[in-house]
């Protein structure tokens, strides 16, 4: 689905009157992160411009592309393909086991583990993996969770046991799982068509969160639950759940929900591919109309302008006031699929390259 959407022409109209006023005097604007963007494409070593996932491991950057897994290290790219043992050339998701340094790679045809250069691959034929299309992957101690096109799987790397989670043993109405986020006490699954599933590690029990508006494509009860059940991404941090859908995004602190839509927030679009929470109040949103940052009050959006493709950044403050920021660079494309962090810098996966946002002071 994601792949097909990538090819949809982007016929969007910027809801702002762009770059009307420089924002140099705006204290909100100066407080929001400003980046100089360096973009990587096939012209400078990336194996493909369609980048579905990005992961930072200290000074190394991994990019999952449509034509291999790329590693940026010491200023150059190295590419891993099925010829090296990778499950498939189309890399959809990445997760790092921070304890061991092993990288887990979700692809269109299986799950690969890269450990100090060695690649082991798990598929639905040679292992207990539920399905070869691995949209999401996450590491919980010795367990590796995968969100696949046929439910979720959990591999116990110590015993080799696979546990499958689907409509038979969870409240999963659809089995198209799209994302997974692992925290110290809970694991969350983004289920395309079935909202968000919560797994409590201590009890092994499941709970689901879905849209109180049911099948309606309009929001009747905002902030009463998940914004929509077509969820694409989850991010669990500081006991707070951030959820992305194709119809807006949600924030849940365990007691109350708060939802974000383009019409009443700084989101540039309701169509969100990935959300990454930094803590309980701050998050990054990867949408089809640009990259957005939310600091708990204000929003910043980074992208090539939708009409002119010129670099664009703007701020939306708590009062809804839009303030353009004069910038000379922007992410490679406004269709953003993933983000990861390297200190104050960000790395962004887009439909036309990988972008390195170098924080400016």
């Amino acid at each position: 689905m994601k792949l097909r959407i990538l090819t949809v022409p982007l016929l969007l109209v910027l809801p702002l009157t762009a770059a009307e006023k420089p924002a140099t005097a705006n204290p909100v604007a100066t407080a929001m992160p400003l980046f100089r963007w360096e973009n990587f494409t096939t012209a400078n070593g990336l194996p493909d411009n369609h980048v579905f996932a990005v992961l930072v491991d200290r000074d190394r950057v991994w990019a999952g592309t449509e034509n291999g897994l790329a590693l940026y290290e010491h200023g150059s790219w190295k590419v891993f393909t099925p010829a090296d043992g990778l499950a498939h050339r189309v890399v959809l998701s990445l997760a790092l086991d921070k304890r061991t340094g092993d990288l887990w790679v979700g692809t269109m045809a299986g799950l690969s583990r890269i450990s100090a250069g060695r690649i082991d691959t798990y598929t639905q034929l040679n292992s207990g993996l539920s399905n070869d299309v691995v949209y999401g992957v996450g590491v919980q101690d010795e367990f590796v969770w995968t969100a696949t096109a046929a439910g979720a799987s959990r591999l116990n790397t110590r015993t080799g046991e696979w546990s499958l989670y689907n409509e038979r043993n969870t409240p999963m109405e659809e089995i198209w799982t799209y994302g997974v986020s692992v925290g110290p006490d809970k694991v969350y699954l983004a289920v395309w068509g079935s909202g968000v599933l919560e797994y409590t590690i201590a009890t092994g029990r499941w709970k689901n969160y879905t849209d109180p508006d049911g099948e309606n494509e309009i929001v009747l009860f905002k902030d009463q639950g998940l914004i929509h059940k077509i969820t694409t991404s989850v991010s669990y941090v500081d006991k707070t759940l951030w959820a992305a859908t194709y119809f807006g995004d949600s924030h849940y602190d365990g007691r109350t929900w708060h939802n974000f839509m383009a019409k009443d927030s700084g989101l540039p679009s309701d169509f969100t591919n990935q959300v990454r929470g930094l803590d309980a109040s701050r998050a990054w949103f990867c949408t089809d109309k640009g990259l957005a940052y939310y600091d708990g009050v204000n929003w910043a959006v980074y992208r090539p302008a939708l009409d002119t493709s010129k670099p664009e950044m703007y701020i939306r403050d708590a009062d809804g006031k839009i303030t353009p920021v004069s910038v000379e660079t922007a992410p490679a494309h406004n269709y953003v699929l993933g983000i990861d962090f390297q200190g104050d810098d960000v790395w962004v996966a887009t439909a036309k390259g990988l972008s390195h946002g170098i924080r400016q002071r």
Partner: protein
Amino acid sequence: MRRGLGIALACAAAAVALAFLSASLPHVQASAPDSDEQYLSPSEMAFSSDGRLLYVVCERSDQLLVLRAKEGTVLHRIHVGHIPRTVAVSPDGRQVFVSNSWDDTVSVIDTATMSVTRKILTGAEPYGVVVDRTGKTLYVANRITSDVSVIDIATGIERKRLLAGHGASYLTISADGTRVYCTHVYPRIGEQRSVPQSEVTVIDTAREAVVERIPLAGVAGMFHVAVSTDGRLGVIAQMRPKNLVPLAHVEHGWVFGHSLTVFGADAGGTIEVPMDELEHYYSLQYGVAIAPDKSRIFVTASGSDVVTVIDTKRLLAFAHSHRKPFVNDLSASANYVLMRIAVGKNPRGATLSPDGKRLYVANRMDDTLSVIDTLNNKLVATLDLGGPKDISPLRHGEQIFTTSRFAFQGQFSCANCHIDSTFDGLTWDLEPDGFGVDIVDNRLIEDLSGTEPFKWNGGNPSLTVECGPRTEKYFYRSQSYSEKELTHLVLYILNLPLRPNRFRPSNGQLTEAQERGKAIFNRKVNKFGKPIPEGNQCSYCHSGPKYTSQLQFDVGTGKWTDRSPIFDTPQLVNVALTAPYLHDESARSLEEIWTVYNPHDRHGMSSDLTKDELNDLIEYLRTL
């Protein structure tokens, strides 16, 4: 208690087996085997930091012996866990760690009291153990789980597991403490009939992470790894199996090459060095020690009962003068082997005294230590550790199993293919039936009683035939066993116990998934209520206590390389340990038996199973 019962059962089984053998071999005058509980089987050693004490691990007696090194007198006999394998001493000398391979623990010994103070849990079947230079972290290589446990010594908590090679077994730590090196005994599970691949796993102790995997093509079966005190030279004892060519004519080629891998800055990369000679082989090299001044390398050949002394300078000069690999050049070793020193039976671990003047060698089948003066390269003492002087039939059988003296030119022993009496993870082209015909997997030999006939085609009615005429004719092509030797060898094999199953819950209760899998294994109707023909029921062919009907069937797994598609039903005990699977190792995992190699439901009805249900079935199989 459990061990006593095990021994009693083993003796009873041995008596039954002997009766069977006596019936099949009327000329053999066999007596009931003695209990071999008293045998020690010393295998590995470590010195105290001051060099006064020598710690000796005894596999058979479940003991750690503490010797006064100078005199060789045994000061303490400390009972540790079951089947201990290796030993390490903390940098301050206050603690000694012994891996217990059947208990999945490490015994911690307080050297002040010379007693076990606690046991630390590890992965499955721990072998190698080293302590880092801070004395705070323990690294343990786990053979079954193929990984390395990183354990906080103070709390006994395992912090993480690091992925290592298949059958991870032996560890060493560099003198500066920055790197841990791990070898493994089984080749990586890869494409069928491909060149065996192994690796040296290099762990950065600061990060507690694997930072390098040194690839070794053509190598299967690595044992000790040693690193010189300056960290510039690493040495590994290993085998190079020739399993991709027919074994039928041993005298025309060879079955195993026995070699070393040298690596590091001195080697300028990774170089494989042959240890055999044109007319004689030095099989199953196991222990490695490098002199403190790096002048010599000492290597035990556990199947040939010798220690090989290598001139390091000549070795490196020879290696550097050859641009092309010379590991298959059997004339090469004459350029760097200084001498071969005869020691006891089945020499395993080799340890230098801290001053480098004495090399101690553990003779596993003699219950002795050989002491070599490294200045003159002479055997100066043999230390008797106090094992029984009488050799029981079982012990004799094990001695025959581990020696290569029966094979043409001493090429190999049973233990080459059955590493530590298990298997080797390889396929072989054994029979004189043409090149590439009847490729067969090497099967596990534990708990064999009641699983006959043998061979994948079921062609051998008994182990006496399997180990006797067949081995002599097709494998060794040299010296025949005497009737007594054959009887004792078969007795030993038939009494090889089954290792504990690591996948069965310790409380005896199967998990929900395992219970569901058991129901699938035993089912007689498919999911739609239709009867499954007997021959397509798992439990029909895999019946009885060992999960074999001892009959042969065509389950659709035959290949064009097989003369017949009919195969013996293999036993399933400890089946989880023996990947890859099927008669020719074409299935790399249990899953592939059904997802790839059972398109017509002939190898059990499986096409109606969901992925969840197949996973359940496999979870159950892993408990058998």
